[in-house]
């Protein structure tokens, strides 16, 4: 059994949810409002001038799955990294460390909470997509699987950086210099097929591209690369980052003296 202390694990998930909803103006509403702004400015405004999108969808409809991925990635990383770092900084993480909770129960607690939070945010934005640009996923299983994999990946990265960081500023390094730039050029706003051939080749080295492409597939049923390739890349990255976060926690890295 991976989880022995089921109640302990569930309590940690619940605690993370309590935390999320006690800072709802920081976690839930910003991604929703930002998405609304993107949809109105780029999707319905400037986007009305953009034609010939893949799968015959409008630009605003093309934009929605990319924006969901953008917010899921950003919020999942931010929340798990700040929760772990704050727990270290305030020593409240010691409540978990002295309890009969294993490293995997702790990591799964943070990751499952991250996945639940990600799906909640995604569903809110999906509802906006339905109301304002009349688009909904056509493949709900792929929708959920992709969000879950991305949540595992970025919750794990959040834990890793929450453990590595010596001050709050450090956890912003990954967001500022890697996540945001790579997501923006990873296909949120443009299809790879609309880019020059050289840029298309460079895009294949951007991991965010596979996440966005896989997720957009759940809406449009088409992708720039084969779905199996995208899911494989995301799965491998999720497994590797989860394993690193687990190893760091199991060895007590910056947690146990």
């Amino acid at each position, binding site marked *: 059994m991976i989880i*022995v*202390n*089921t*109640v*302990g694990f*569930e*309590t*940690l998930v*619940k*605690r993370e949810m*309590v*935390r999320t909803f*006690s*800072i709802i103006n920081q976690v839930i509403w910003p991604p929703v409002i930002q998405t609304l702004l993107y949809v109105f400015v780029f999707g319905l405004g400037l986007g009305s001038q953009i034609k010939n999108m893949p799968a015959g969808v409008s630009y605003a409809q093309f934009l929605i799955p990319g924006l969901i991925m953008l917010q899921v990635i950003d919020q999942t990383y931010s929340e798990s990294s700040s929760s772990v770092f704050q727990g270290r900084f*305030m*020593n*409240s993480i*010691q*409540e*978990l*460390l*002295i*309890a*009969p*909770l*294993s490293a995997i129960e702790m990591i799964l607690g943070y990751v499952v909470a991250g996945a639940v939070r990600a799906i909640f945010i995604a569903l809110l934005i999906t509802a906006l997509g339905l109301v304002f640009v009349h688009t909904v996923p056509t493949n709900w299983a792929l929708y959920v699987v992709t969000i879950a994999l991305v949540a595992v990946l970025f919750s794990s990265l959040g834990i890793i950086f929450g453990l590595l960081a010596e001050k709050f500023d450090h956890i912003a390094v990954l967001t500022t210099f890697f996540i945001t730039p790579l997501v923006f050029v990873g296909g949120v706003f443009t299809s790879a097929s609309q880019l020059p051939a050289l840029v298309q080749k460079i895009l294949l080295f951007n991991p965010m591209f596979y996440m966005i492409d896989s997720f957009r597939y759940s809406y449009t049923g088409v992708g720039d690369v084969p779905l199996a390739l995208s899911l494989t890349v995301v799965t491998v990255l999720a497994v590797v980052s989860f394993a690193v976060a687990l190893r760091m926690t199991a060895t*007590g890295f910056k947690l*146990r*003296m």
Partner: protein
Amino acid sequence: MNGAIPALRIDRLVKRYGDFTAVDGISFDVREGEFFGLLGPNGAGKTTTINAIVGLAHITDGSISLFGYDVVRDWRRARRQVGLAPQEYNFDRYLNIRDVLIFQAGYYGIRGKAVQQRADMLLERFDLASKAKQVYTKLSGGMKRRLSLARALIHEPRLVILDEPTAGVDVELRLELWSLLRELNTNGTTIILTTHYLEEAEELCDRIGIIQTGKLVALETTQKLIGDGSLQDVFLELTRR
């Protein structure tokens, strides 16, 4: 478990941080039901020893067992036996104080109506019931101390470790906490106390261990240790060597 198994057994415990040895081969037992004082000057190794007992510090060498359960090999069962009231407040700032207790019980694998009733009973007992829905930052220093003790007790541990439980509290509250601790001990809970207030150890503890630069320099019943003098004289003599 029978009475012969100690509540705590520390056997040749060593804890090193790089080249620095914080705890240098100490060994002692604490019997079930005992009120044990662990004293020493700042930096002597008291908190490191406590951290090793509760799993907050890795053990470099030696072993620790709680009621017969090794804290490394049988860590889950060992951790269920012990509750910690740390020196620094480390409550979850997102939970009200009733939930601080209920969530802590949850981490120990306990939930349900019985936990809620126990949380309410502890809040009542520690005179915190009127603050149940507030976050800990709204509490006074004395209330935070009492909450820390209540949290350490929520999963009904057989051993409670109190790291400087009366640091920074006024005389009235200190006497109140002493009364609570005596009652707890009378009801069968084993207590390990670290304190810089020597009169507190003298008043409460059955037996005292004194640590100096990571080594145990005294381990005796309080009466024998004091003899005809005072604990302060003994303490200063042992720790000035």
